[in-house]
């Protein structure tokens, strides 16, 4: 079908022709243009029978098959890992939530009990409290984090010279692991000797941060906000830099005050990235475990106990895996709701 004799002309022609022939030998007809083949036929380098039909048919088969296989092949490792370490546990957790799986009662291990676990959860006032605490904690951390992040980003955006120093210093909390941040804040807010306790006592409030209810919630929210607002700052800073300066100048010419500029230009332009940041921050706060666990372990009389803490407690302190799994299923439903909300928001938004 092919003849290998060919007369070289220009270098580019040679490369093209050699590549063309190589691909034809390999069967990659999708990478061989019909024009090139026709030219080679015209010059007498190639003899082909039924040129058009053969090329078309071979090209389609090869192209699709090869591309499909390669695409899936590349995706397989990630898929296998996800299914093994995420898909299977989620299904298993669903399964466990309908069973009695209490290591303290080995006789009934694995017995199917329907929705008893869920009923137990909802009739337990401790669980309902932790549900409320989770919502309060998530809401506070997200909103506070966003406001502080917005302020920092706005201030950082207008700096030029010292921007580097301030950016690094404000973004440093992101690099500190959450657990270590909790250890540090434990010392700073320590009731006899912590320095922040001392400062607050100067104002007149004598507070013991870990043993009193509202202060412990405050402490937990502060630490979580400290840890999460750099992420918001970085995202908003990146978003602010996409707003061209001319818009602000035009608004100044039209007589807009700074406040007006903020609310009518900056915030609407930041809407897409704000959505992303709020959702990401919110889910981080919702699923956060270590900060609360290390600071208060659930708080004075379970006041700072969120759903995640409750789940972990029931699972690895009380060894009641079945009941803990039902809490997990409830958390999963809330997460799915947030994901659904996010998808809808992303679909609706036009990014201009």
């Amino acid at each position, binding site marked *: 079908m092919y003849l290998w004799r060919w007369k070289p002309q220009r270098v580019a022609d040679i490369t093209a022709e050699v*590549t063309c022939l190589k*691909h034809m030998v390999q069967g990659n007809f999708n*990478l061989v243009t019909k024009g090139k083949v026709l030219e080679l036929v015209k010059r007498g380098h190639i003899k082909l029978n039924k040129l058009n039909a053969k090329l078309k048919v071979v090209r389609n088969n090869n192209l699709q098959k090869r591309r*499909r296989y*390669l695409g899936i092949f590349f*995706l397989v*490792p*990630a898929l296998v890992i*996800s299914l093994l370490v*995420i898909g*299977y*546990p*989620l299904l298993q*957790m669903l399964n466990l939530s309908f069973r009695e799986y209490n290591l303290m009662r080995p006789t009934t291990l694995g017995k199917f009990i329907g929705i008893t676990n869920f009923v137990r959860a909802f009739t337990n006032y401790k669980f309902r409290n932790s549900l409320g605490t989770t919502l309060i904690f998530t809401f506070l951390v997200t909103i506070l984090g966003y406001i502080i992040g917005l302020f*920092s980003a706005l*201030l*950082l955006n*207008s*700096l030029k010279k010292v921007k580097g120093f*301030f*950016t*690094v*210093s404000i973004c*440093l*909390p992101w*690099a*500190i*692991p*959450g*657990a*270590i941040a909790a*250890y*540090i804040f434990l*010392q700073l807010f320590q009731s*006899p*000797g912590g*320095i922040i306790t001392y400062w607050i006592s100067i104002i007149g409030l004598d507070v013991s941060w870990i043993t009193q209810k509202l202060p412990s919630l405050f402490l937990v929210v502060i630490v979580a906000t400290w840890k999460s607002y750099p992420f918001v700052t970085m995202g908003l*800073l*990146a*978003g602010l*830099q*996409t707003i061209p300066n001319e818009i602000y100048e035009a608004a100044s010419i039209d007589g807009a005050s700074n406040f007006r500029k903020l609310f009518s230009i900056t915030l609407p332009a930041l809407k*897409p*990235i704000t959505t*992303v*940041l709020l959702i*990401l921050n919110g*889910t981080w706060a919702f*699923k956060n*475990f270590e900060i609360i*666990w*290390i600071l208060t372990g659930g708080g004075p009389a379970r006041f700072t106990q969120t759903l995640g803490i409750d*789940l*972990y407690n029931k*699972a*690895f302190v009380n060894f009641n*895996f079945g009941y803990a799994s039902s809490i997990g299923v409830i*958390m*999963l439903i809330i*997460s799915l709701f947030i994901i659904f909300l996010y998808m809808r928001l992303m679909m609706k938004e036009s990014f201009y």
Partner: protein
Amino acid sequence: MINKKQRLLINIIVLLPFAFFALFPIYSMLVLSFSSEKSLMAYPPKIIPGEYTLNAWRNVFTTRPVVKWLTNSIILTSLSTLISIVVAIFAGYSLSRYKNQFSIGIGYFFFATRMVPSTLIIIPLYILFQKWGIINKYPSVILAYISFQVPFASWMMKSFFDSIPTSLDEQAMVDGCTEIGALFRIILPLCPAGIMACILAASVLAWGDYMFARTFLSQNELLTITVGIKTFFQEYRFHWSEIMASCLLGTVPLIFLFLLFQKSLVKGLASGAVKQ
């Protein structure tokens, strides 16, 4: 009217409390790790305490296997990050260049995984790993870290690869490149910032993890540094200077990595997040 220079000054003055809020705990960690017990118990506590000593550091290294903890953290984080990034590069390329119904669904699945709490998967994973007998060994923690690193990194890689036009690798393939060749010779060299951002983000996630390490590792010598510090709280009296010293040990590798990659990280997050 306020001129430019005064405006800049006001800007800086308003920013100072933010910087203080952000930096003060880190500063405390530094200073307190070098303070003596006496200055820690002094009332009122001062921002710049009086006495300095290296006692805390000596005690930290002698009473606890801190070096082992650090080694554990480093090995676990680097192994899991390595595996995750390699898997994520291939997955991101597939999600970015081969778009059909199947891969778009997988992409959304990966993205949704980031919003699912890790507390949900820990119970079944614990039972499974106990069956496999790898509780209290490295593979359990590595698998757990990979579980949240791979989807996150795949999605990030996908958005970076999306920003590189497909005509580039199609050009390369016309010139005789295979798909894998296009990936490694064209696409990867074009987004080093993105890959570094990905590596950094994945490492930060893995290093700072507390829950998985605490649940899957119980032997003192196997703990990671974040969990190991908790053992300081099991004594009757807390030696805060020692705790702060070990916290510093647990933070320095990360800050080092962070400062190395800082510039590429901001650039990476910008193109990754805004380009939804």
